[in-house]
């Protein structure tokens, strides 16, 4: 049998031991920087967030331990929780709307692009172009376009005789959120489109040809072959959309402001968290305690649901051998 632990050290063993030590040192050299950076700037703050959420805070100074007091304040204090509930349901609306409009459109576009029509490359580039731009640019650009008086959108509506429709889109509680969701869909639709397209291209051509020989219609092929086999891509997009929707911040911040105007109709968990943590008109002074508690709650929610969703969606995936 192998002598893993040799009691007598010969010069040969020493040479081997030295080489093993050098190898360990080399591995440590490779791994240490990345692990140190990640620990310091991701894991440590994440852990601290939990730690901080059970303390009273006065500005930057940590006060007394108050257990779940901050959580109670976030969840049950009527001054806070009406904001929480409102923001939460707005996030839910965003998620559902993006699933339907953004990802639904992306699926159709991907199915069409998979046929490699004329202009295939051009379409890919066109659809993906907004994806590479900063949300800030997109947000401001559309804010200018949606300006009630001279914005391009309303001018266009008036020019084609739909003057009645030319409402202040971002100024009405009924339309503001919808407008922002459409802007987000415009910004991002290229991303799921190309992820779906890549997934469709990965399906073996023979499978689709075999189905066609069996006499399946294009619709049946899409439903019975392509859709089930692109499941992994769907899983990823659903989870990413979920995480993105519940972390939604930039577009509402830029187009609606920190208070989710008009009248909190575009308020989001992300904005609420920012206001709670760093202070604002409605939330009063900066409060790191309740802010941390809110962050922990959002994290738990996102983590739980994305894990469950991944499990569920993955179970529907088929192995392509």
């Amino acid at each position: 049998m192998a002598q893993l632990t040799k009691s007598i050290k010969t010069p040969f063993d020493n040479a081997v031991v030295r080489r093993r030590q050098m190898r360990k040192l080399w591995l440590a050299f490779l791994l240490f920087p990345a692990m140190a950076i990640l620990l310091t700037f991701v894991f440590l703050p994440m852990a601290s967030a939990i730690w901080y959420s059970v303390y009273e805070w006065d500005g930057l100074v940590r006060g007394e331990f108050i257990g779940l007091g901050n959580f109670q304040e976030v969840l049950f204090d009527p001054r806070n929780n009406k904001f929480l509930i409102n923001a939460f349901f707005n996030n839910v609306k965003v998620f559902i709307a993006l699933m339907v409009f953004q990802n639904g459109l992306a699926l159709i576009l991907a199915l069409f692009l998979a046929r490699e029509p004329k202009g295939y490359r051009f379409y890919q580039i066109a659809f993906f172009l907004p994806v590479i731009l900063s949300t800030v640019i997109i947000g401001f650009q559309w804010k200018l376009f949606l300006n009630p008086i001279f914005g391009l959108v309303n001018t266009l509506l008036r020019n084609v005789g739909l003057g009645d429709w030319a409402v202040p889109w971002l100024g009405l509680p009924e339309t503001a959120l919808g407008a922002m969701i459409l802007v987000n869909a415009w910004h991002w639709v290229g991303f799921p489109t190309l992820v779906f397209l890549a997934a469709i291209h990965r399906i073996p051509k023979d499978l689709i040809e075999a189905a066609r020989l069996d006499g399946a219609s294009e619709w049946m092929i899409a439903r019975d072959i392509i859709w089930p086999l692109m499941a992994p891509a769907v899983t990823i997009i659903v989870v990413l959309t979920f995480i993105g929707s519940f972390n939604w911040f930039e577009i509402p911040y830029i187009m609606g402001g920190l208070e989710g105007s008009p009248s909190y109709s575009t308020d989001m968990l992300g904005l609420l968290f920012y206001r709670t943590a760093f202070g604002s008109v409605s939330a009063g002074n900066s409060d790191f305690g309740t802010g941390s508690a809110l962050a922990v709650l959002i994290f738990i929610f996102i983590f739980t649901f994305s894990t469950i969703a991944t499990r569920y969606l993955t179970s529907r995936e088929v192995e392509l051998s």
Partner: protein
Amino acid sequence: MATIELRDVTKDFGGVQVIHGANLSVQDNEFVVFVGPSGCGKSTLLRLLSGLEELSSGEIYIDGERIDHLPPARRGLAMVFQSYALYPHMNVLQNMSYALKVAKKSKQEIEEKVHAAAEILQLTELLDRKPKALSGGQRQRVAIGRAIVRDPSVFLFDEPLSNLDAKLRVQMRLELTNLHKQLQSTMIYVTHDQVEAMTMADKIVVMRAGNIEQVGPPLELFNKPANKFVAGFIGSPAMNFFHGQVVGVNNATYEVKLENGAQFTFTAQNSNLAEGDEVDLGVRPEDLQPGTGGHGTMAGTATAVERLGAQTYVYLRSPIEESMIIHHAGDLDVQSGEQIDVSFDLKSCHLFGPDEQRIEFEG
């Protein structure tokens, strides 16, 4: 120009032992071929020798000096891999000079050595090509060239020709044999190919499941296989085996009855066979004669016949569902489905005892 010695070499991967104490001596300037079924540990043994894997226990000596603690490059070995492993981003010249560059050899020395090696391998024209722009045979030559420039005392080859087509393989085989003569260095060569093993080797090492089964010159292994495994492994088509039992013992004379009915006697001086022991009679396809006679006759139905004119292969199935192959020099007019008799002469047969070891006997 080196002798190699392995002493009780073992290797385990995560608790699973794959080499169980290998002992082997290789003489200076010898061409040694490792053969054995897939997964038996040939590559592992080569990698232990090269230093790419660490020994679990045991010792390795080159020219009498222990080297198993040294890193690969300081053992004076060079290795040629099955997939050539050429650096894709370097041209042929850079590939061949890399080892010398690492060893901080002078520009002039590098130049000389690389050009000398390129000369031997007819690579001079190709020095500034990238591996992608080379044919399989050319890549193989570069891989060998990369080994040559280092002036190693031992060359290790792990199935170097198996990615080449049949014709190129024959050509490279001859080139390698010439190279061995020219360089006068020790070579260890792993292959699956019987012909390569038989034609190139000074010495063949047959391995099975992490053990060295037999070591010897090709014809010795062919004529005197040490056990049933080696007998079945060396030679193509493989040896026919007939199972039987010792039914009579009289001093050094034994009587054996095969399951297919054939019966014969032989004498063996140093055998401790007893009545009832199970034995196997091994007969090479070329030693089975059509017709009756010899020391025993068996019957079988031809299931397939390959008549090549100069030689004929007949695949037979005996009444007790044994299959056997006859290799007949010359044409033999047998039809598939026909029933024929075959006979054997004990002189050309091999006998293996209950432990599957060879029994020396006289017919």
